[in-house]
């Protein structure tokens, strides 16, 4: 079991000793049991930190944000950041290290094990119990999730309430960390993406219809992009303007910024947006599943990333985020890479 008191102790020590400029962790949110990300800067505040099955967010996003913020500051605090990472989150750290977006010294990783369980899918749980009544959500035994409702403990088996990404996860403890909390319990191998199987079994027209239905709902709120720690580009193909405007940027440079797709949520543009995003995340997506969780329109975005995850493994034996020293998927090749598709 991960003891939250131990995380707090470590966070307190790091802050008291001034080793870190802050601790990015989870705290109880304004809506009762549901945790939200927070930056803790004072040792007095570390008791706000929580660890429970509602800690769904990938906090590496805030490492990225802090890094960008630092670049804007004249005299940034160069001390590292402590950040609570789950298995998937830690793999995101590895990708950032691989891509040299951050250096290892910039973060102190408080690794937590998901211990044969995972995080809760709020939608699934709320279909079973009304939100207002839940007082607490904690880990039970054998990956079970316990919700305290009206003082009573209700135990849910993982397959009923865990997020799909956790049910499909095979690496449920951090691969990189400085401090580790909990136990490394290796999960049983399961089908890593039944959703992809389903689509692969469809006929071409069915697939097209499936994705047309799903992607036609996209509002282009960009929550999927905003929540993704790998979507750190200052200039994104979907933006009509570049954010990398300096006083020296000429009008021509700004005018030449290619408008790859229209801002309108037309189906064709939604397709291109999601495909470009998927391919840009190939070999980088660690399946933290945040894009799909945040989508207000319930678009199964993970199915795109999971497909490429599967192909990267099948074609190139590549898994994202396992090794910060290894070259990334697209920055290397093997002589033996498949080329039977090339004429």
């Amino acid at each position, binding site marked *: 079991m991960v003891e939250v008191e131990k995380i707090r102790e470590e966070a307190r020590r790091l802050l008291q000793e001034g080793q870190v400029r802050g601790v990015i962790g989870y705290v109880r949110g304004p809506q009762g049991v549901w945790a939200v990300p927070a930056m803790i800067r004072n040792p007095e505040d570390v008791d706000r930190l929580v660890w429970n099955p509602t800690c769904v967010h990938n906090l590496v996003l805030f490492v990225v944000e802090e890094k960008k913020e630092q670049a804007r500051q004249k005299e940034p605090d160069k001390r590292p950041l402590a950040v609570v990472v789950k298995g998937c989150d830690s793999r995101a750290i590895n990708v950032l290290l691989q891509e040299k977006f951050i250096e290892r010294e910039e973060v102190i990783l408080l690794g937590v094990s998901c211990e044969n369980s995972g995080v809760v899918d709020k939608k699934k749980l709320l279909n079973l119990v009304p939100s207002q009544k839940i007082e607490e959500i904690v880990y039970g035994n054998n990956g079970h999730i316990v919700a305290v409702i009206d003082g009573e403990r209700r135990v849910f088996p993982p397959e009923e309430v865990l997020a799909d990404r956790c049910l499909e996860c095979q690496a449920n403890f951090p691969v990189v960390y400085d401090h580790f909390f909990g136990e490394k319990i290796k999960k049983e191998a399961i089908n890593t993406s039944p959703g992809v199987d389903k689509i692969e079994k469809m006929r071409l027209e069915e697939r097209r219809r499936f994705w047309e239905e799903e992607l036609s709902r996209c509002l282009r709120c960009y929550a999927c992009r905003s929540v993704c720690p790998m979507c750190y580009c200052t200039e994104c193909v979907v933006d009509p*303007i570049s954010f990398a405007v300096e006083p020296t940027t000429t*009008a021509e440079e*700004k*005018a030449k910024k290619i408008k790859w797709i229209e801002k309108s949520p037309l189906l064709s543009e939604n397709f291109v947006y999601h495909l470009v995003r998927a391919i840009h995340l190939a070999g980088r997506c660690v399946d933290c599943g945040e894009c799909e969780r945040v989508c207000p329109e319930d678009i199964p975005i993970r199915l795109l990333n999971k497909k490429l995850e599967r192909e990267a493994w099948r074609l190139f034996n590549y898994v994202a985020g396992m090794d910060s020293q290894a070259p990334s998927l697209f920055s290397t090749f093997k002589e033996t890479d498949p080329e039977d598709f090339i004429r």
Partner: protein
Amino acid sequence: MEHNPYLPQLARIISIKEEVGGARPIKTFHLELLNGHRFDFRCGQCAMISVFGKGESMISISSSPLIKEYLQFSILKMGRVTTALHEMEEGSIVGLRGPYGNGFPLEEWKGKNLIFIGGGIGLAPIWSVLQTALRQRDDFGQLTLFYGARTSQDLVFKDELKKLKETIPVYLSIDVKEPGWNEYVGFVPQNVLDKKPSPEKAIAITCGPPIMIKFVIKGLQELGFQDDQIFTTVENKMKCGIGKCGRCNIGHHYVCKDGPVYSWARLKTLPQEY
């Protein structure tokens, strides 16, 4: 037919003059509406210029409303639309809608001394007032112009300024020394403090880069100008021009309809989101 506020009228570029070259070029365009349509406006108002396929830009009208033959816009090449405009030729057709904004309260300034303080492209909105005041010379007291730019090359309306000097006091300045320049060297606010215009019965109208405006206002206050004697314009990003799209929103104001002209007395009550 119901009025469609988003539908531009077509206008022809009847002349283009290069004011400033180099990396931050400025050109002055004269436009006339097709089919002889009129375009009535007040000093300080703006118009939305369309380059079809590129988009729209809100530009202040720099000619006097008393001139009916053309509308004048002096445009700094800045982004997608203005770059396209700079690439256009005389005779090209653009879209025009407006006018937008409140404009300067010229009626209230009758009999007053007007002090114009401009920097860079900021002379454009001021120019409209200045030209109007010159045409209605008896309605106003003394007219004075302070105008500066980074270099002598960056000054707009160079020829017009030469002529203007024969009629009113014109104090030019450039930021750094240049051979052959025998006027003031330094920033515009400093030039104003140096010449000490009197606040007596005066209105100061200032327009230019935000940092210049900030120090001009400070300087004017030092010289004894009251906040309601100082006017400036605010430029926020705009899209609709009619207070709906929410882009130029500052507090409960929409710059496109409640601005762009503000007395400092009024502007200082708004959040600093410009």
